[in-house]
């Protein structure tokens, strides 16, 4: 008995070491279910708050270039808005000629399908295998897991963890990310994945060999899920390789979003998403 006790005392540092490592491994295994941890992430109050404070200082350095980009985007959106307005009035005229009813009845009934929630990037990594982006908006601002995130250049990623005031994005440049998108000319659907090396490039998978792929072709979101609307730019085909034995292309994509200089993003909230999710959960239960 005494020998056993002595032995246990002698190896107790080893036991503590093994216990702590087990905790670490359990945490690591659980990370693949990326919704499950909110405490050990930048969305918690301590780390999110510190990142926000640090960002409030460092964001001044990039202010002028950010302003320029926002002004450019503003003018593009304003032009688009004018065009859409003129198209709408044109259609209204046509409708009022055909139908004898008041056209405002038809117009007021349309529901806004999606809303953009603007957010600021307060934490961002690009050099890891699993990169994450932290935003300064959270559940209180209407952000929920699985919402799409875009910026003026294109797709950024998908919301993974949300706390009250912060949220964490799983960007394209995370090895766990997988975003559905389509080729511009053939409209073939594939998914974009990242190989963990260069934050400017990713791979487009599942494009079958009968499709004709050209270099420089644009890639957009498919719009098949209520995460991204259709037609948000993802990237451009940089290289398309097809070996004799392969049934799918190996496509290198130059991403349209520059993850190095990310500062302001939009989170996309679909009005019908909850309805669709509810439907899916009902289906999976039955």
């Amino acid at each position, binding site marked *: 008995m005494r020998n056993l006790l002595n032995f246990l005392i002698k190896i*107790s*540092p*080893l036991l*503590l*070491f093994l216990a*702590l*490592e087990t*905790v*670490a*491994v*359990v*945490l*690591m295994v*659980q*990370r693949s279910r990326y919704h499950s*941890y909110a*405490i*050990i*992430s*930048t969305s*918690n109050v*301590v*780390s999110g708050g*510190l*990142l926000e404070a*640090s960002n409030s200082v460092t964001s001044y350095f990039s202010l002028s270039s950010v302003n320029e980009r926002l002004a450019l985007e503003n003018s593009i959106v304003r032009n688009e808005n004018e065009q859409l307005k003129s198209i709408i009035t044109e259609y209204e005229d046509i409708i009022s000629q055909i139908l004898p009813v008041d056209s405002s009845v038809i117009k007021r009934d349309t529901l806004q399908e999606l809303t953009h929630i603007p957010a600021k990037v307060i*934490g*961002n*990594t*690009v*050099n*890891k*295998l*699993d990169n*994450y982006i932290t935003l300064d908006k959270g559940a209180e601002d209407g952000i929920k897991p699985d919402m799409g995130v875009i910026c003026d250049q294109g797709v950024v990623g998908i919301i993974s963890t949300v706390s009250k005031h912060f949220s*964490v994005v799983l960007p394209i440049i995370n090895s766990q990310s997988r975003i559905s998108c389509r080729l511009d000319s053939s409209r073939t659907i594939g998914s974009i994945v990242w190989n*963990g*090396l*260069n*934050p400017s490039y990713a791979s487009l998978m599942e494009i079958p060999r009968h499709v004709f792929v050209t270099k420089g072709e644009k890639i957009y979101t498919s719009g098949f899920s209520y995460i991204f609307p259709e037609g948000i730019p993802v990237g451009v085909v940089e290289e398309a390789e097809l070996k004799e034995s392969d049934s799918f292309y190996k496509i290198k994509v130059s991403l349209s979003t520059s993850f*190095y200089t990310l500062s302001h993003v939009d989170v996309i909230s679909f009005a019908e998403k909850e309805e669709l999710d509810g439907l899916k959960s009902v289906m999976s239960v039955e």
Partner: protein
Amino acid sequence: MDRTGRYIVLFIVLVLLQVLIFSNINYLGFVCPYIYILFILALPFGFNRYGSMGLAFLLGFIIDMFSNTPGVHIAATVAVAFVRDYWMDWILPHTDVERVEPSLKKLGISNYLRYAVGLVLIHHLILFFAEAWSFSDAWFTILKALVNTVITMLLIICYYLISKR
């Protein structure tokens, strides 16, 4: 300032340096020094092993919190805290080291490098393999660990050149 106070300050300074500056370095896509491990290296020799592993756990937990990598930094840092005493006995067996705070000036450059390089390499290897969570690109992961060990060591040497101790 007494010794405990100094270590608390070192802990906070290293965490802030790591999460606010060094974790944001993105040179060539894979250069990222992990300077915070200096805290475990700088603990006095003969320091309570449960204490050093507990501190390593806390340190790893905080860094994990800021980098969205649950468990990865905990595993690497706790391993260094556990191995450190054995490593010390093996690398510098005949020095009278009881309660000495290991630093570049106290151990001398060659002894300190022998002490620190091995531990930093162990830390980085565990860290990058835990992050990759596979052995498929093993050579790339090892290369990453080696390159970043060199950079972390240069930063540690810079720290000792700037500080008075």
